[in-house]
């Protein structure tokens, strides 16, 4: 008895050491990464170690970001998971996950790349099922693992196919040698990689795993939504030249765009906070894929970082949604002509500022699309502000430009920084000529906007049920088991 006790004590002693040490370690790695990043920006060194390791701006950028998230999240989990049976295991998984992401952007060898990708999935599914005493969580873990294995499988097919065809296992050589491969090879490889990417990002029709992953403790969800789902943005940026060479960008645009719209509608009917956040993530990932499809891989990377901040925050604070409220109908206020002019003017000014600061949309190419979205966003913000009665006229005139100037300014800062750091990666910011698909898609987007604005979707009951069922979690992860006391 005594022995057993002291054994337990030393176990729990070790565990509490792990729990304290890992967040600290992650903060250290983050600081180290950040220092290297700044040094890199100033000195621009060449950091290659043999053929295997290649550290460039992108490596340091992703490394800083992922360590930032895991440091913040493990720090949070230190208290949040206090007393949880698997507290130490959570920390270890969090650390291993971080290493997988770092190695994904550090190694130049395709086998290591595939291994990192695979490990990311393994760690994530382990986090989803970390509470092994909970049968639904075990089901969710298995379920998500199947998706991640599928993703890894497709990625391996695509990448190994390319490697064998071009006789090299080095990523850099493989990318630079794409021009010599037959078109069919390129298409097959890029399709496989796209599948891997959209599985990871829970893009339709592979979205169900993300909606079934709430058995993970809240901080694990934060890590998932800020650091895991957007792995596809990294992957696609690494293989940007392949996507260009195989002419598969329009496919990304279509899949991403459709997902963005559908998931955004699906989000509106969610009654659970975490499912709502998951639908929002799916929509944002759709948008990110769409940015890739427009040739702006750097914009996609900027988006994945900013979205990571946003979504990590919302998950970590997801306990704040309890409130007593009254049933009420949303007000529909008509806009007056003068207000409409203000909205229009601000929208245009916003677009011009955006174009000036980011260089997107300055020419007649796919950048127009992104600038258009900024213009509408600024317009929507202005619209909401000018019709608000509690604000004075001065406030109505001052607040919108203040908001959008700071928003656009900070975005441009991020975007330009990301672009600078990604300069070693080939073809990550190549605006495409305007194609029919893009125009069609622009129109679809505008229609989606108007449907939402006018609220007509609310009058279509079957759509409600359709979207509701589309966003249900995997059945075996809900109410599948009953515990029985003896």
């Amino acid at each position, binding site marked *: 008895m005594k022995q057993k006790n002291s054994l337990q004590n030393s176990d729990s002693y070790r565990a509490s050491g792990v729990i304290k040490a890992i967040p600290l370690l992650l903060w250290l790695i983050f600081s180290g990464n950040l220092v290297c990043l700044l040094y890199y920006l100033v000195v621009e060194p060449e950091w290659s170690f043999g053929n295997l390791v290649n550290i460039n701006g992108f490596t340091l950028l992703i490394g800083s970001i992922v360590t930032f998230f895991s440091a*913040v999240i493990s720090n949070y989990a230190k*208290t949040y998971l*206090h007393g949880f049976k698997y507290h130490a295991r959570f920390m270890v998984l969090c650390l291993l996950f971080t290493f997988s992401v770092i190695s994904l952007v550090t190694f130049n060898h395709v086998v290591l790349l595939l291994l990192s990708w695979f490990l990311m999935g393994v760690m994530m599914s382990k986090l989803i099922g970390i509470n092994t005493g909970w049968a639904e969580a075990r089901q969710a873990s298995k379920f998500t693992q199947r998706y991640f294995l599928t993703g890894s499988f497709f990625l391996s097919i695509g990448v190994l196919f390319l490697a064998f065809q071009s006789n090299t296992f080095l990523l850099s050589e493989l990318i630079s040698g794409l021009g010599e491969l037959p078109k069919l090879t390129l298409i097959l490889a890029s399709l496989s990689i796209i599948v891997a990417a959209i599985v990871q990002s829970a893009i339709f029709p592979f979205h169900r795993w993300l909606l079934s992953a709430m058995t993970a403790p809240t901080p694990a969800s934060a890590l998932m939504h800020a650091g895991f789902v957007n792995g596809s943005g990294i992957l696609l940026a690494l293989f940007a030249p392949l996507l260009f060479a195989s002419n598969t960008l329009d496919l990304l645009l279509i899949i991403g765009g459709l997902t963005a*719209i559908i998931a955004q509608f699906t989000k509106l009917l969610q*009654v659970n906070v975490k499912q709502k956040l998951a639908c929002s993530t799916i929509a944002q990932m759709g948008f990110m894929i769409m940015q890739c499809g427009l040739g702006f891989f750097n914009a996609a990377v*900027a988006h994945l970082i900013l979205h990571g901040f946003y979504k990590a925050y919302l998950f970590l604070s997801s306990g704040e949604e309890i409130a007593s409220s009254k049933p009420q109908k949303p007000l529909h206020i008509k806009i007056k002509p003068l207000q409409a002019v203000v909205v229009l003017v601000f929208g245009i000014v916003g677009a011009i500022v955006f174009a000036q600061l980011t260089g997107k949309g300055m020419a007649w190419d796919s950048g127009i699309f992104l600038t258009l979205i900024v213009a509408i966003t600024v317009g929507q913000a202005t619209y909401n502000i000018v019709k608000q009665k509690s604000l004075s006229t001065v406030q109505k005139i001052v607040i919108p430009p203040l908001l959008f100037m700071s928003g656009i300014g900070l975005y441009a800062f991020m975007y330009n920084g990301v672009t600078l750091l990604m300069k070693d990666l080939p073809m990550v910011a190549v605006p495409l000529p305007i194609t029919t698909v893009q125009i069609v898609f622009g129109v679809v987007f505008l229609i989606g906007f108007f449907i*939402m604005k006018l609220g007509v979707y609310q009058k279509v*009951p079957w759509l409600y049920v359709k979207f509701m069922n589309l966003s249900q979690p995997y059945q075996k992860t809900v*109410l599948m088991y009953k515990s029985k*006391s003896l």
Partner: protein
Amino acid sequence: MSQQHVLTSIEEASKVIGKTWPLYSFVTSNPLAGYEQSSFKEAIQSAKEHLGAQIFPEASVYRQALNQGEIQREALSKLLKENGFDQAPEYYLDVMESAKSTEEVNVQHDLDRMMAKWLAAFMDEGLAEWEMPGKKEGFYQAWRKLAKYDKELGITYENVIPKNSSEALREALKDHPHDEYTNIFTYHLASMPGWTGYINYRSESNSLWQQKYPISLQDYLGVRLWIAHHWKMEIVPTKEESKVDLDSMKLQYVWLKAWEKSWQNELLNLLEKESIQENNASLDAQLVFCIDTRSELIRRHIESKGSYETFGYAGFFGIAMDYKSIEDGQIRKSCPPIVASAYQVSEVPQAKKEQSFQRFERRNKQLKFGKYFLKRMKNMLPSAFGFVEGSGFFYGLILMARTISPRYLYRIKQKYATSHETFCEPELQHIAKHKSETLDIPLIEKVAIVKSAFDLLGWSQFARLVLFVGHGSHTANNPFGSSLDCGACAASPGRHNARMLASLANEPEVRKSLQEDHDIVIPESTIFIGGEHNTTTDDIVLFDSEVPYSHREDLRKLKADLKLAQGTATQDRLQVKNNSIEKAEEKANYWGETRPEWGLAKNAGFIVGPRALTKNKNLESKCFLHSYDWKQDSTGKALEGIMQGPMVVTQWINNHYYFSTVDNSTFGGGSKITHNITGKFGVVQGNGGDLKMGLPLESIKKSDDEMYHAPLRLSVLIQAPLARIEEILSRNENLQKLLDNEWIYLMVMDPLNENEIKRYSRGLEWIQSTAQKKVGAVGAKKVKEVILEEVFA
């Protein structure tokens, strides 16, 4: 088949479910309240049978209690022997440990999932922007209109589904005899006790949501049984051999009783120690706190800082009121759920402070717009994408700030929090049932409110400063925040009730009438002030903006002492020597904190008597304390009020803690770390499922394996003449039932008989306390009989 029969059967069946309260007003109620007319033993047996729940503490908890000395070995061995268990306690621990609960595949999985999906969609309280179509027509009708689009259900035409829920029930039950109904309904209500409990709550409270979007248990059963019928499922529960092992239950029950007995012994021993009586000749101030167990700690620490007299009074301060918030205009109940509200309190600007009032309202509107604006930007296409890109950087900054400096943010929040108490005063009005009724309150009612406070508490002299201190908790990112607020105020903070009572007691006409009509003389120099005890940080805020200049110095000294008391109280509570206040503030505002404070955990006793009885004794926040002086209550009316009100409410709280502890996943909320908020009012675990109905694991356990709250039934101790209590009990059948059915224990300290302690036993019998070691042979025999009879006859 008569509709009446169906309704009666539903009513009968609904005993099995409790009430799931919304988390924004989390009332800690007994989940087995439906069985309060039956005995504790019957209630738990039924819970075990229908809900498959654990009903006793786990063996590992008993083991911890035994090892920590909370279960006295002597008491335990004695009880075990008396009940025919002759082995050593450890032997029985091993026996109990060998029984483990198992996980089985849910035979009604699809049905449960289907119901959970539609119930969550229907009962949402504004989380979704796109609400379930047709909600206004009620649950059954709304579901019926949408069911044909639900592929899983397998229906193409709406007309296949009966037009209303009673027809649906008729169709589903057509092959079943009437006397099976109750059984069937019980089974189907008990398969989702959380959601059905919330339906129960909604129909009883008739909330605004219920008025607009009605739902009833009949609707639920109609949909559920019709789907089951349509899917050709068996709707009668399969008769498993009921494996209720009476022997093992008896064993567990003996352990529980031994634990309870041990605690009572300890309490009585503590109370018997001689108090150090102090000379209260000149009082610095008097403070009235809620009976809440957390008040015990702060009272002890304040008393040690100077000549302070403290009292315990139900935290709604005797005002049966609703409170209208100045921030969102909503009206919330602010008195015990068992009391009907007669008044409404709202805020009006103090004299010459209209400007601040208007500024506040304007700012408030802008804040509201800010929230609406964010929601709009996040929800709309395509601004959702633009918004994330434009604001992501700011989110990164707050992410960092909340991680690094929760305490600094807390200080800022406290500093800039627009505390409307500085320019508002509460106004008491009637709740008008008809338009023609006047809202003004006659003087006589105001006087009655103030008088009853002094009557109940046994007040003898007035200090210059008299404080009524409500309590509220301040926590961040905590869905269960309201469970930490005042139970006597229906899970609202008690500050407004405290302010209201202070304001009434300061009215000159009220004082005049008290003196002339009731002989209660309040010196002119006495000032009443409302306040709030922040139970997370032990800070006490005083709403003193209207205190006259003459009392400034007294107030300054009082505040300094309260600060000192905060320091030592937090040291005591958090078990740290240095920076205890900082640590408490961090706990209050850190978003990663799942145990910001312990609420009422460890509650086990309710002591009704003068403070002298408990003063200078450390009760470790385990007791509710109600002030009472039997000498000033010749008619027994005051005591009767205490037993009908606070005693019943504390029993609810205590039973809530008991059941949440013994089976946290059934009666409690499960672990907070995987909670998923639903509909703005509740939580589910993980991906969804049944609504959670009780306190989370983090409120009652130190860790997944270590206990914190000891699940013991409430022991009430009253100091009053025995005859008076017998009278009250024979007048109040419900109170006697509560005792006879063993939901609580009662001990009486009889001042007319040298403060001897007697324990209540079934049917108005009394047993002399064994702790006093005066028990004769008869007494001992009786104890034995009683236990043998109670434990599973």
